[in-house]
């Protein structure tokens, strides 16, 4: 059996979307798992045709299995190799792409096969434009992984890869105190930007979030730099892309790199003190004013 599409799996079996895309291309689907054995077992029951587990010990990060992943994929060269958008899987996809000398695309909206070519509609330059590309040869795609696939009723045997891991190991894990979140699941999202003066003021935003039943997210500098929230909460071209019913941008200027992450929102509301902020040209409802007055007022109006 020759594999048509390989799915690369790291620490989590969150590959539902990757299986859907791989299946849509036809042909056998293989999965190579660099994470724990338990992940390989979940994947083996998810309806793929073949599973290879790299067998690294628990204190070794998924990235250490990059040579084993590249080796496995190259031994049964696919047309397409897929991975989810997290740091570990990016590294593994990179190793496979280097080995296959594959084209690498990260903005695929649709993927299809046309004779000898793989056709991808690919968003480029922070999603401002789209290209339809035809690739003759191997393609590596970074996509949203999706959720954990349900058991498909049947299990394929787990093969083991033999390559030695790279010299890296986990020596310590500390909790950050930040709750984990899946913004993609939220119907309403409030985004906080640098218009908020202090971390303590998040309490005011949390009160609104509670009143409107929303998750709190942010622009990149708030998560990376100010460190007010976990990195899984920042929205934008290099962060989360969301499509909630409501996105409420508070103190966000509306830079392109942020706004591409909320294009799919059904309704966008913005609060900003600067009437010239770019965000107002991209919203349904704009409120020019002091967020410290407006946010509590909206919270009160919801009660």
């Amino acid at each position, binding site marked *: 059996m020759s594999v048509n599409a390989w799915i690369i799996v790291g620490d989590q079996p969150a590959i539902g979307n990757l299986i859907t895309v791989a299946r849509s291309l036809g042909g056998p689907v293989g999965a190579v798992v660099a994470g724990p054995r338990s992940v390989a077992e979940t994947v083996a029951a998810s309806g793929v045709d073949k599973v290879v587990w790299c067998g690294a010990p628990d204190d070794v990060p998924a990235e250490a299995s990059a*040579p084993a992943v590249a080796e496995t994929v190259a031994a049964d060269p696919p047309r397409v190799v897929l991975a989810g958008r997290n740091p570990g899987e990016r590294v593994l996809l990179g190793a496979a792409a280097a080995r296959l000398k594959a084209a690498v695309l990260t903005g695929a909206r649709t993927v299809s096969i046309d004779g000898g070519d793989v056709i991808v509609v690919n968003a480029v330059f922070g999603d401002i*434009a*789209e290209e339809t*590309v035809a690739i003759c040869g191997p393609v590596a795609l970074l996509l949203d992984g999706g959720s954990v696939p349900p058991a498909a009723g049947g299990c394929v045997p787990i093969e083991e890869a033999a390559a030695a891991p790279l010299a890296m190991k986990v020596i310590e894990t500390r909790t950050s105190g930040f709750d984990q979140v899946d913004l993609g699941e939220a119907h309403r999202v409030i985004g906080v930007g640098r218009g908020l003066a202090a971390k303590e003021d998040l309490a005011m935003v949390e009160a609104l979030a509670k009143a409107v039943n929303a998750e709190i997210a942010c622009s990149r500098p708030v998560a990376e730099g100010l460190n007010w929230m*976990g990195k899984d909460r920042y929205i934008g071209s*290099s962060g989360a892309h969301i499509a909630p019913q*409501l996105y409420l941008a508070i103190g966000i200027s509306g830079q392109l790199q942020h706004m591409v992450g909320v294009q799919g929102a059904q309704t966008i*509301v913005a609060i900003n003190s600067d009437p010239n902020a770019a965000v107002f040209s991209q919203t349904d409802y704009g409120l020019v004013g002091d967020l410290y007055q407006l946010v509590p007022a909206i919270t009160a109006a919801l009660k």
Partner: protein
Amino acid sequence: MRIVVAYKWTRDPAEATVRADGTVDWSRAKPGLSAYDPMAIELARQLAEVAGAELIGITAGGTGVAVPIASKAALSRGPDRVVIVEDESLAEAGRSELAAVLAEMIRYIGDVDLVVTGDSSVDVAAKMVPAVLAGELGWPAVAEVTAVSGQVGALRVERAVPGGVQVLEICGPAVLAASADAAVPRVPGMKALLAAAKKPVELLELAALKVPPSSAIMTVAGRSRPERKARKGQLIDTSDPAAAAAELVAALREAGTL
């Protein structure tokens, strides 16, 4: 001992416009050092100081990446010298082609124990070049690195993971993609700018590197400007915050959003 930091001289798509035919007009976008590269350069400089290593900046791209202002922007932030491949064929290069060129540059420089990059570029934001580069070199790679300590060759690398921080120990050479909070970049002063003008800039010919060819031939069959959802663009009078809040809540309820 040598440490390499890869940087990118490029434009910000926020300053570009997309024509109706889907082609991108970059004419009003000013080129500059990619937004997160100063943090990567600073981190690499700090590691080079600790290790007593030479720090070499590298970049590869189309016409324009070797202009003096670009080299100076990198050199004034810390590298001892830069090595550049400027070739118009790289202007439209994909992630894997670019990574393959960088890998050959690192082999050409020789004696390199660590490569630092930014986590993503301001223009493409694919976050894949460091990953493919590590694959080309056969080295361990870590993305979204938030802090590094220890010695080059025996590094302690911190990265954010969901809900926490993980510390990794890496023996031997590695590729580290630095997150924006990995180091606070310096603002180069006049002295650094003057010193940068005297640092060596080496231009390499792409053909001399013998980069292995890609197995994939990619052709652009079409371009388009993505349809954006039409927005109402309605401004709510905020002279009375309570009335503004009531108006917003009523509008959202009517739209079925609340």
